[in-house]
């Protein structure tokens, strides 16, 4: 074709067109303009045609040209959040979950167990953290604590101190708004006319108490109720129990009389208060005015700088700085205690915030309910871990199935799905599953609530979720937020990983799983198993320590020891000791009773202490501190406490007049403390106790007077008697009920009008470990859950990865691989992960358990074999989990897997 027949538009204009015109319409526009050029050329010649061409090219260049939209956008595109799309997501999600029942089951059960466990623990943690939160001024209330030093050594670290402290501090420091002073009254028996009501824990409190704390009175004036001596305030439930009144009749109780224990003088009811909340560190049913104490104990309870049995709480002014105030206390001590000249010790005072009184208080002589903050935080960490493990299961299983779902994603993409829509679909699967799990878990938690409350012996509830628990509605919102975030994040990773697949690759079959995805999954498995191994090791240690405490030789024998409370409603008189001895003799006549002893105090209780005990003949200025225990002459024999030197008590050692009792028995620790070289050398030596000379007639071996949390103390035994106290009987347990009835008969004959109550010494002693045992039970249970959930995850993961290697296994079998070698091959990958987890977990576990063991004075060693056993356990659990699938795969007929394709 000759060029003259076929005119050409100017090349530069054409190039301009091809460069700048949008690609979508270039072909048609180029053609059209060529055709038009030819048309103009024919009609008006080259010059006009060229000019027209250039003009028209310019008219189809940006910004004048309209862009043709992409072809696919001609279909109606819905936003991924369009209601129609969401309905579709849910439908597809339901179908998918239903289709893969094993996958959904594994996932669902993991999540349900995880969430339930988490909710239960959160209830417990919330309850523990919410202690004293009902006190409106909680942030301004502090408790005065008191450390006492003798010769630079800490001898008491307590919450009790001298009666004058609160009063004097409030007077000296203007930043203190108010104070209140409390004395523990133990458990009181209340008497109305002839009827006796079971013991109630009670406090002597000063007149400020009711307005200082938030313990509202239903009737009565909080300002004056505790002012007069012998005033009494009852809680509502006690008022109802004792007087059988309805709330509207409380006012009629004001001014009525009640009797306490043996007192002949009546107590006047001056108020009825609301019951003390369970989450209060101060627990009581009865309040008695402090002035009453002045009458019975003497004036020292108001002005002594030496005697100490008082708890003081201070309320600071809103703008006051507690730290600054605390810094003024050394000057306070110097001013009033003058070194150790006044009380015998150097006194140091501190302020303990009320917030810490329940969970973070490591003092002796606690007034209230104390729990270990460490244990509570441990529980919280376990709860978080369990939930994380459950969510990780979801992530792992969902991404592991990516191969299976890759084709689905490919087809969806080809059919026009955007990645936003795919993410929406996968997210809605996770949200659906999680919500379902949440509902089941809530249901399960409510069902199990009574059991849980019984195990931990606490009134737990789901108050946390309704905004009535710790942190109020903000905490509830935060929890819901955390949960929503967890669901979202656990659904997010798989959703992104799955929707990112390239449709072409997937459908061509050249698709490979990314190495990154495998790496993420592996680290998640390592994390899960690390958490599990830490929990296994922790559980082991807790149990070994509990076992150790139970089995440890306490230094005395408390088996088959029946203890009855002494007749504290019988009056003490000159015949009391004789009566006690004849009662013992009478009971001992019973065939089943082998021996009997009376003591004022018993094992497991905090013993009273005496300071400034000095050896006679030593020239030391200040003495030592010992504990005291009053026992009769059968005590050491009955409890099989070994006599190391000297002799036991004789009947002649005791005297109704306490000041005339000179002979004492001491334990080995006292001998050492007083500076005697041996037990034998101490016998016959003298020391001063309360300024009176006492003689050591015997030395007994040391024993654990309290739980193994506490160190063995130096104890001085004196042959005192009391009508209160305890009688211990070593008995034959063959016919227990009959024996108890016989003892009751004797008791009622000797001490009419008293309540007969008994317990077994070993049970009572073990009660000291109740919190530890509950902690042990809970950690075991939840560790078990964590391991279970992690195993579920591993089970699911292994079944999918092994299913993917079905062809490889088939080829290997055809080529002659044995079943054993295939199982080994398949299990190896997972075992490697578990081994890594054990290595990571061991130091973490070691740190955690040594923190826990620190609270015990006598503890087990953390030995390496515990870690080894935990490791072996973790490996075997993983192995069992994985081999289910790997053995099944290895036994499969290779024809089945290789036939297709």
């Amino acid at each position, binding site marked *: 074709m000759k060029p003259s027949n076929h005119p050409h538009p100017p090349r530069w204009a054409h190039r301009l067109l091809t460069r700048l015109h949008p690609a979508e319409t270039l072909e048609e526009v180029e053609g059209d303009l060529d055709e038009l050029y030819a048309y103009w050329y024919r009609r008006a010649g080259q010059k006009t045609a060229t000019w027209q061409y250039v003009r028209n090219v*310019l008219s*189809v260049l940006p910004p004048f040209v309209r862009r043709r939209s992409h072809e696919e956008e001609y279909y109606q595109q819905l936003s991924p959040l369009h209601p129609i799309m969401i309905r579709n997501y849910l439908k597809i999600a339901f179908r998918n979950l239903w289709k893969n029942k094993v996958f959904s089951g594994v996932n669902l059960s993991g999540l349900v167990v995880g969430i339930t466990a988490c909710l239960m623990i959160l209830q417990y943690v919330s309850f523990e953290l919410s202690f004293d939160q009902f006190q409106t001024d909680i942030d301004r209330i502090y408790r005065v604590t008191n450390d006492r030093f003798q010769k630079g050594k800490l001898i008491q670290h307590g919450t009790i101190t001298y009666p004058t402290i609160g009063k004097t501090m409030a007077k000296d420091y203007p930043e203190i708004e108010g104070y209140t002073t409390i004395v523990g009254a133990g458990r009181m028996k209340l008497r109305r006319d002839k009827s006796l009501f079971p013991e109630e824990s009670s406090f002597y409190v000063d007149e400020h108490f009711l307005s200082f704390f938030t313990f509202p009175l239903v009737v009565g004036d909080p300002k004056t109720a505790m002012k007069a001596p012998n005033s009494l305030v009852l809680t509502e439930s006690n008022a109802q129990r004792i007087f059988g009144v309805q709330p509207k009749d409380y006012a009629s109780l004001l001014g009525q009389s009640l009797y306490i224990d043996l007192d002949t003088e009546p107590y006047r009811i001056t108020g009825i208060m609301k019951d003390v909340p369970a989450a209060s560190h101060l627990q009581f049913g009865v309040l008695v005015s402090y002035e009453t104490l002045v009458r019975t104990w003497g004036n020292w309870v108001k002005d002594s700088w030496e005697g100490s049995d008082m708890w003081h709480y201070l309320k600071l002014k809103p703008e006051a700085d507690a730290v600054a105030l605390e810094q003024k206390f050394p000057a306070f001590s110097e001013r009033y205690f003058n070194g150790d000249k006044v009380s015998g010790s150097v006194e140091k005072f501190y302020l303990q915030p009320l917030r810490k009184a329940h969970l973070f208080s490591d003092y002796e002589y606690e007034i209230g309910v104390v729990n270990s903050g460490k244990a509570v935080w441990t529980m919280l960490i376990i709860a978080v871990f369990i939930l994380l493990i459950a969510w990780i299961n979801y992530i792992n299983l969902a991404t592991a199935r990516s191969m299976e779902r890759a084709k689905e994603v490919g087809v969806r993409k080809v059919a026009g799905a955007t990645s936003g829509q795919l993410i929406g679909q996968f997210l809605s699967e996770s949200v659906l599953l999680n919500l379902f799990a949440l509902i089941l878990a809530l249901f399960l938690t409510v069902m199990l609530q009574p059991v849980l409350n019984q195990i931990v012996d606490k009134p737990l509830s789901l108050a946390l979720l309704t905004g009535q628990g710790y942190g109020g509605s903000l905490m509830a919102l935060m929890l819901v937020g955390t949960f929503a975030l967890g669901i979202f994040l656990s659904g997010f990773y798989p959703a992104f990983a799955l929707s990112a697949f390239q449709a072409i690759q997937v459908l061509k079959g050249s698709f490979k799983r990314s190495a990154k995805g495998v790496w993420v999954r592996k680290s998640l498995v390592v994390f899960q198993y690390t958490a599990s191994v830490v929990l296994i090791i922790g559980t082991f240690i807790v149990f070994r320590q509990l076992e150790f405490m139970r089995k440890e030789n306490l230094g005395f024998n408390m088996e088959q020891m029946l203890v009855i409370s002494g007749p504290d409603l019988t009056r003490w008189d000159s015949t009391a000791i004789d009566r006690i001895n004849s009662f013992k003799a009478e009971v001992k006549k019973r065939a089943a009773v082998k021996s009997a002893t009376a003591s004022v105090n018993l094992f497991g209780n905090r013993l009273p202490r005496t300071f400034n005990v000095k050896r006679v003949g030593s020239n030391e200025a200040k003495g030592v501190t010992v504990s005291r225990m009053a026992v009769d002459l059968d005590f050491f024999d009955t409890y099989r406490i070994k006599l190391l030197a000297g002799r036991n008590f004789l009947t002649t050692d005791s005297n109704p007049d306490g000041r005339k009792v000179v002979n004492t028995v001491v334990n080995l620790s006292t001998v050492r403390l007083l500076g005697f070289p041996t037990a034998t050398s101490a016998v016959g030596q003298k020391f001063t106790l309360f300024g009176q000379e006492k003689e050591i007639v015997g030395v007994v071996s040391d024993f654990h007077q309290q739980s193994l949390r506490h160190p063995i103390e130096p104890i001085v035994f004196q042959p005192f008697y009391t009508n209160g106290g305890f009688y211990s009987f070593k008995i034959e347990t063959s016919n227990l009920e009959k024996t108890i009835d016989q003892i009751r008969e004797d008791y009622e004959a000797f001490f009419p009008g008293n309540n007969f109550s008994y317990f077994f010494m070993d049970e009572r002693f073990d009660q000291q470990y109740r919190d530890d045992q509950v902690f042990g039970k809970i950690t075991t249970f939840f560790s078990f859950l964590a391991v279970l959930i992690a195993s579920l995850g591993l089970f699911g993961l292994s079944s999918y990865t092994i299913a993917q290697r079905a062809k490889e296994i088939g080829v290997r079998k055809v080529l002659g691989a044995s079943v054993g070698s295939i199982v080994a091959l398949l299990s190896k990958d997972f075992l490697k992960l578990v081994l890594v987890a054990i290595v990571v977990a061991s130091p973490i576990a070691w740190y955690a358990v040594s923190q826990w063991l620190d609270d015990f004075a006598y503890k087990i060693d953390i030995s390496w074999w515990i870690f080894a056993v935990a490791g072996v356990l973790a490996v075997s659990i993983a192995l069992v989990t994985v081999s289910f699938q790997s053995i099944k795969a290895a036994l499969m007929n290779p024809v089945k897997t290789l036939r297709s394709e």
Partner: protein
Amino acid sequence: MRRTYLGEFEEVVLLMVAILDGEAYGVTVSQALEEHTGRLVTFGTVHNTLIRLEEKGFVSSELGGATADRGGRRKRLFKVTALGSRALQDIQELRSHLWQLVPPNALKISGL
């Protein structure tokens, strides 16, 4: 449903597509415009209008009919859709209705 607005030029172009009956593409529409209305517009105006009409759903298009004098490049051929023809008819009806409402002498040149 609010009817999509059809501009004056759009209406003329749409009518051209209807007139060309299957043979409408950039070149023929431009030429027909020139021939029937005497309007000389740039190719870009026609091109843009056709795209806009398609977006509004009044025309549909497909590629085809490559010939040698366009260097083997395909044309984009336009057809009036049902919606487009409906729109044209609506306009026609509206116009005639309005014409009937005009008083007989209103548009006559007065004074003679």
